[in-house]
């Protein structure tokens, strides 16, 4: 074999970098199944909100953050909005200085996909009060957290670690009458953070519609 000449060296180096980048891209994309678990640092995210402004986790350092995966067409989401329970929880969390982020990971054209103005209209119509509605049409944030259902709830503590991950409450149904009977895991987690202790139930299996990735 002849020695690599100089000009070829640069191309071979380029090809090597290209190969490494492909490998990296492939490894990253193959890893999307793993999910955020209580105790772990929350994955960093930066998404556009309904007003088209970038919102990132770093904006809320030192504050408690609630992530609510949502899809207004999903009967399980409707269960918690029609009963008014979700709005009440948002309001009380807001009063306590908790940052509530509703996240829409529906891909364009699928159920629940909304653009900025539509998202705001939904918020007004439902009398909801999230700090922001985050639009994640490519599903990157949803996959980073391992969000599986709507609703799927995450509570992030002031230290940036996940405090709670899972279902909104304890009764896995789409029946609105079950809401008052159920234990709401998110309000439990928020109370625990306020009291400076760990929640009794840090991890549950979420229930609801699939996130429309």
């Amino acid at each position, binding site marked *: 074999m002849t020695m690599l000449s*100089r*000009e070829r060296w640069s191309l071979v180096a380029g090809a090597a970098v290209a190969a490494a980048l*492909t490998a990296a*891209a492939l490894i990253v994309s193959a890893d999307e199944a793993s999910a955020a678990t209580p105790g772990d640092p929350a994955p960093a995210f930066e998404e556009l909100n309904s007003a088209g402004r970038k919102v990132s986790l770093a904006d809320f350092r030192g504050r408690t953050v609630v992530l609510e995966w949502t899809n207004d067409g999903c009967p399980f989401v409707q269960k918690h909005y029609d009963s008014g329970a979700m709005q009440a929880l948002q309001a009380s969390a807001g009063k306590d200085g908790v940052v509530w982020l509703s996240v829409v990971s529906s891909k364009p054209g699928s159920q629940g996909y909304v653009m900025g103005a539509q998202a705001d209209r939904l918020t007004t119509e439902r009398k909801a009060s999230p700090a922001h509605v985050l639009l994640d049409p490519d599903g990157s944030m949803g996959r980073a957290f391992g969000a599986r259902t709507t609703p799927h709830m995450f509570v992030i503590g002031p230290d940036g670690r996940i405090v709670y991950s899972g279902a909104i409450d304890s009764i896995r149904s789409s029946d609105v009458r079950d809401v008052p009977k159920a234990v709401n895991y998110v309000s439990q987690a928020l109370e625990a953070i306020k009291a400076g202790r760990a929640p009794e139930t840090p991890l549950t299996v979420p229930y609801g519609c699939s*996130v429309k990735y």
Partner: protein
Amino acid sequence: MIKTMKRFLGVCAMAAGVLGASGGALAEPVRTGHTLAELISERAAVVPGDLFLGALRLDLDDGGWHVYWKNVGDSGLPPKIDWELPEGVSVGEFTWPAPHAIPLATLMNYGYEHQLVLPFEIRLPQGATPGAEIELKGRASWLICLETCIPEQADLVLRLPVAASLVAAEAPGALIAEALAAAPVALTGEAMVERTDDGFRVGVRDDAVAAAATSAASARFFPDGPEIIHAAAQTVEFGPEGLSVSMTASEYAPAGEAPLSGVVVLEGEDGSRRAWVVAATPAALPAGVSGTMLSPVAAGLTLLPLLSLLGAAFLGGLVLNLMPCVLPVLSIKAAGLVHTAHNPAEARLHGVAYTLGVLVCFAAVGAILVALRMAGEQAGLGFQLQYPPMVAVFALIMFAVGLNLLGVFEIGGSLMGVGGNLADRGGASGAFFTGLLAAFVGAPCVGPFMAPAVGVALSQPPLTVMGVFLVIGLGLAAPFLLLSFTPAIARLIPKPGAWMAVFRQALAFPMFLTAIWLLWVLGGQTGADGVIAAVAGATVFAFGVWLAGRIGSGISGRAVSAGVILLAVIGTAMSANMITAPAEAAQGVASSGGEVSSEPWSPERVKALQADGRVIFVDFTARWCATCQVNKKLAIETDEAKAAFAEYDVAFLVADWTNRDSVIAAALAEHQRAGVPLYLMYPASGGPPEVLPQMLTPGLIAAAVRTAAGPGASEGLTGKGDGL
């Protein structure tokens, strides 16, 4: 049609039941949005103290509507009944038939399509009096989903006459027996589970399982709980004593050793299923439950089909030489051949080096594909061009090769000289590099002969996949290998001379065109920003090579210029990676102006249009697929095809696979394809589509439209006109 008939028959049967003189068990089916729900019983008449089976029967709409198993997987709810029972009557739990895996995007559901019969025990009190009627009332509720989910419910009633002696109900009894037969059975052997680095390995040591595994086409473990990542691929092996399944743990898996329970389902090639209840306790797996990989079709592929598969792969590789994306790279090699034509030994060396380059690239692509599919990704051929950074870097390489051919960066030689450079006289390593490049750009250009071969190959065990990929590589390399070993042919090429400098420079332009094509692909993925980033990267790159030429051959000079070049490559890739596709681009190929008007494809849309009785043409395409673009220009967007589309009111759906999309990948897999193009024509009468050839002509499309519209379709239209 069939559904309507079924329903009609159901109503008839019901009416017959009502009119029946014996006055048998009476159920009232309830029609909800997507379901016909009913309580059924294996008894037409019961006796006091009777213990028998009833069932909830759900007939679901076709087209993918599904309900859930007791463990729903990632989302959903299982069916349930809230009973309102007479005094003394008790009803048991559901017996669940073995579930099916229903994947959706990156998630997984467990459930049933078409029909679900859930049997349960009914116990009557001893005091029931003959002549009376027992009425079982219950509110059944279930979640039914296609892509969207709808909670449905029905108040169901089952009335059972009490008689002196029992009377069996044959048809419902048979349905219930069928459901019981589909339920998993207890294991006679034992089951054990051990933790692995990333999850669990469940072993089943059982003679019946071992026997069934040898002829099974696939197997899956359905857990009772949330311990595994449902959507992750499972690796199934079997041995003389049973089988084992490796799975990935989810965040809900308990830490350390713990039992794992669920159901193992084996599916035969004919679709027959057998299922066992598995309650695995922590223990080491015996050696006899593994050793042979169980993967779809693996058992059935004998030598002959394998040879024909490899033959098709070789042919596909050969044809790849003519594909628009490979041709420019090959033209470089052609220039190289001119040089070595009159030195047989060198020619042979170059031929071998080139072949080696092609094979290394195909081996790498094959290995990555196998790894991706093992990780549960829906990757297909051409997947490397679905990653914007890769496309950007690739455009950069094409640009660089073009510059090199033009002589812009030949250090040591005169600027316009024909001296040592990348591929035309670069010795064996140059030939090797050309081979790499040709294979890399060639892979997404799935030739017409190759797509079916690769589609079949990807369902095979990893070794076969690798074999097929290497043979495709051999096919691609074959013409040049042959040339370099046959001096007689090579001698026909004119002797080297001044004309070569011109020829070589001329070859730079196909390279630039290829770069432009890649930028167009990138534009589809990332919008203008990504293209600008890549062009900026190209400028920095050009600066780097220019700098290299200026600074000269000192070590520091080389380091500086290499640094600039690396910066260009890395910067381009990173910026392309950060720029996300705008929504419109993700939506697919938008139709505009003079083009045939189309809309984005989705399985639901196909179903809806079929329900309307429309002929549907689906174009599975991607920007990086050259064959697709050629077909689009020369066949689809022609007056003849457009006229046929208009005449028969054909719905034109486009499935754009430029970016990764698991729904499209799944649809391709359904037709045994690993890549685009794929053209489907759905008949107006409903039913499965006709798969059109990968090389389309306007006449072919028009003919397919007419066939799909069915006989008399155009007469029907005329007839209507006459009537008016």
